[in-house]
């Protein structure tokens, strides 16, 4: 092992939004900063690469935001999506701090744009990055490097030397060699463990083999595991992850946004036995998409099929793979290797239960089924116009909830209840503090930037003292 000659004030583990905000704020506070990113340069930034906006409170409209989004409204939204599984004090603090982020992040060079096509519902609340998450990351990296932050890629931390909540050194591999680095303060911003299939299998069993990981293959939770093993208090349900239904033909990792499917509400969803299993029209899609990953995960072989007909084809955003098409339901069943008799029966039963109504694709309409189990509460229209289409779907894992407990300074809290002397956390690795379950668009980036900035500042302060 080679001993790094340099001693840094602040060592940042990870390379996403939270890590870069921490690195920049620590550097701006005068600290020397080393960033160790496990991914190669192209894949730097973990899941921040796949993001596109940040939810920040603001009191008035801006050039890119259509109206005010008050702290209270943000809090109400967070309370609703988490079902109360949040640390109110920390969450309210984060929301208050988020107001300043709009300026701070722009000062780091990041540019915003009005909300993207198809996301009008977020135009008031969420600030969209011009060019998306990777553009934002590139800007943060440029800013960090111009300030003198040192960044290493393909540098994976494999061990941490921690004594009684005090960080001493980290061991990392780079270029086939093992190095050790000392730092006065440590910031963990290395994401969750959603790309670590063996770890997921601890909670999900073999079903996890059929999960697709929507983001970075480098979020293996190494740092999280090391921290928990060194007495840091855990937060969030370890068995839970944010899962949506994505195209089953997507690659195992890093398929990103383009494999999502927004058409569940316009069709029916059957499992491999050709049977429906949940109300596809329960609520508007933005409020329901996040339950479908779990629903599909609960089906045999973790696979399901969204079935719809020609009348729905252009009602939703296009996605990467074209739907599987066939002139008849029987033929479609053949394409999908489903039992044709069962699928025909399912469709016939559904069609017979559809009540007449006025179809409105953008609002909760009165098109519903009657006497069907499970029902379809809205947008229920007969599936009868050829050609017929199907998308195969599997659970797509976005992120995990397990993390390290932190206080307002982003300082880690030990299992004993004491605060760590020089260890901080930001981003997905501590998201579970404010986001115990559920999700609201752009909240992950709020957590990353707000706590990243604080963690960097506090780590620099810590290093100086």
């Amino acid at each position: 092992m080679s001993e790094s000659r340099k001693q840094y004030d602040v060592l940042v583990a990870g390379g996403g939004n939270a890590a870069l905000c921490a690195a920049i704020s620590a550097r701006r506070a005068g600290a020397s900063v080393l960033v160790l990113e496990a991914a190669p340069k192209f894949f730097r930034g973990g899941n921040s690469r796949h993001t596109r906006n940040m939810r920040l409170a603001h009191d008035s409209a801006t050039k890119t935001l259509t109206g005010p989004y008050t702290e209270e409204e943000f809090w109400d939204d967070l309370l609703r999506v988490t079902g109360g599984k949040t640390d109110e004090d920390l969450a309210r603090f984060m929301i208050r701090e988020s107001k300043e982020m709009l300026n701070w992040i722009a000062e780091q060079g990041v540019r915003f744009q009005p909300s993207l096509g198809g996301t009008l519902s977020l135009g008031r609340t969420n600030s969209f990055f011009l060019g998306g998450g990777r553009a934002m990351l590139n800007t943060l990296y440029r800013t960090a490097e111009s300030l003198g932050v040192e960044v290493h890629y393909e540098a994976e931390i494999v061990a941490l030397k921690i004594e009684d909540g005090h960080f001493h050194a980290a061991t990392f591999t780079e270029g086939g060699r093992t190095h050790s680095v000392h730092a006065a303060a440590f910031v963990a911003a290395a994401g969750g463990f959603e790309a670590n299939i063996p770890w997921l299998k601890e909670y999900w069993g073999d079903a996890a083999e059929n999960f697709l990981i929507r983001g970075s293959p480098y979020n293996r939770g190494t740092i999280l595991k090391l921290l928990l093993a060194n007495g840091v208090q855990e937060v969030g349900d370890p068995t839970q992850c944010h899962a949506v239904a994505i195209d089953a033909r997507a690659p195992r990792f890093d398929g990103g946004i383009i494999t999502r499917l927004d058409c569940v509400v316009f069709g029916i969803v059957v499992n491999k036995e050709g049977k429906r299993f949940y109300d596809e029209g329960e609520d508007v899609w933005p409020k329901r998409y996040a339950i479908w990953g779990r629903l599909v995960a609960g089906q045999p072989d973790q696979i399901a099929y969204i079935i719809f007909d020609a009348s729905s084809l252009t009602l939703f955003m296009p996605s990467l793979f074209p739907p599987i098409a066939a002139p008849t339901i029987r033929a479609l069943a053949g394409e999908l290797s489903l039992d044709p008799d069962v699928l025909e029966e399912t469709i016939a039963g559904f069609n017979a239960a559809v009540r007449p109504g006025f179809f409105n694709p953008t609002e909760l309409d009165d098109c519903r089924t009657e006497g069907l189990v499970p029902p379809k509460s809205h947008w229920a229209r007969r599936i009868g116009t050829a050609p017929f289409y199907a998308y195969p779907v599997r659970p797509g894992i976005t992120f995990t909830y397990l993390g390290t407990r932190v206080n307002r300074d982003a300082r880690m809290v030990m299992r004993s209840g004491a605060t760590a002397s020089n260890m901080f956390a930001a981003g997905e690795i501590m998201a579970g503090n404010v986001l115990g379950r559920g999700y609201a668009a752009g909240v992950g980036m709020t957590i990353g930037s707000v706590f990243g900035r604080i963690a960097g500042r506090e780590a620099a302060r810590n290093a100086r003292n």
Partner: protein
Amino acid sequence: MHGTNALAEADRMMTVCNSCRYCEGLCAVFPAMEKRRIFADGDLDYLANLCHGCGACYYDCQFSPPHEFNVDVPRTFARVRAESYARYAWPGALSSLFARNGRAVSIAAAVSMILFLAGFALFDGRSFLSSHEGAGAFYVLMPHVAMAWLFGAAFVGALAALWVGLAKFWRYTDERSKMPVTAGLLLQAARDAARLRYLDGGGSGCMNEGERPDDRRVLFHHFTFYGFLLCFAATCVATLYHYGLGREAPYAWDSLPVLLGSVGGVGLVFGAGGLLVAKLRRTPELQEQETRSMDLVFVAMLMLTGGSGLTLLVFRATPAMGPLLAIHLGAVLALFVTMPYGKFVHGLFRFAALVRYAGEAATPGEAGSS
């Protein structure tokens, strides 16, 4: 399905991009793409010509190489663009000039200059290498009427070929939308083209040598384009002088044609030179190797035209005037003759694409959905 591999690849790419849309704010291409779900060859030719090759989307894209989705819009569209110039070229038989365009244009320029040199020498060998002064000095070497006819014919021929090519391009990309061209659309497109509105990465700058927004092609293109226009204006004014006022070239240093021509010539040399350097330094990731010679020879021709004109201006009172005039006229003639069969076409097709974009922007919903 698609006419060429490049079109098939562009279709694949637009399908990826249309499912993502993160680049919507960068330029006109992505909003135009969002108006479509199906990308026919005409749509792709339109989108490719709308693309200014700023490179921002390549570095902003989470799916660009080495990601397995392999999204490289600037390079793919550069290929589609080059193919579209050839596809709509008129007469069609000459579209083969687009393949190995660098060689074709260089040969045309060399032949043209040699013919002028030889023609001048044969026409009047003694005058060719002696100095001439006063009005009509150039026409000792080549009668004005011959010059006017030759360049007039070349210019009209080039305009006709360009016009027919442009009309074919418009018709083909118009198959589904049948858009009427109005003065308003032309004005909007002219504004967008004059400012190079979409060569700025949506405000964050363009990429040329790597992931940093280091691109200064907007500046160089402005020098080139406006330099070209000034040179053209100089020629028009000189023609008016000749036929309207009976004043013969060469004109004095402070005359309008010379002022316009020299400012334009400097702009042309500086701008095209800047573009040439930018092209040579451009990262291979953003560059389509197959079309590189076409791009390079075009800026080289503009530099040669501007540079030979300026040199002629400086040495027109010396015995070098004859050879310099031959070289300048040879360059200008070659530029005219090859215009419809080289990079010059990009200006017209992009303008047409900007007109279409302006028209589509004014109509909500999906374009040409049938």
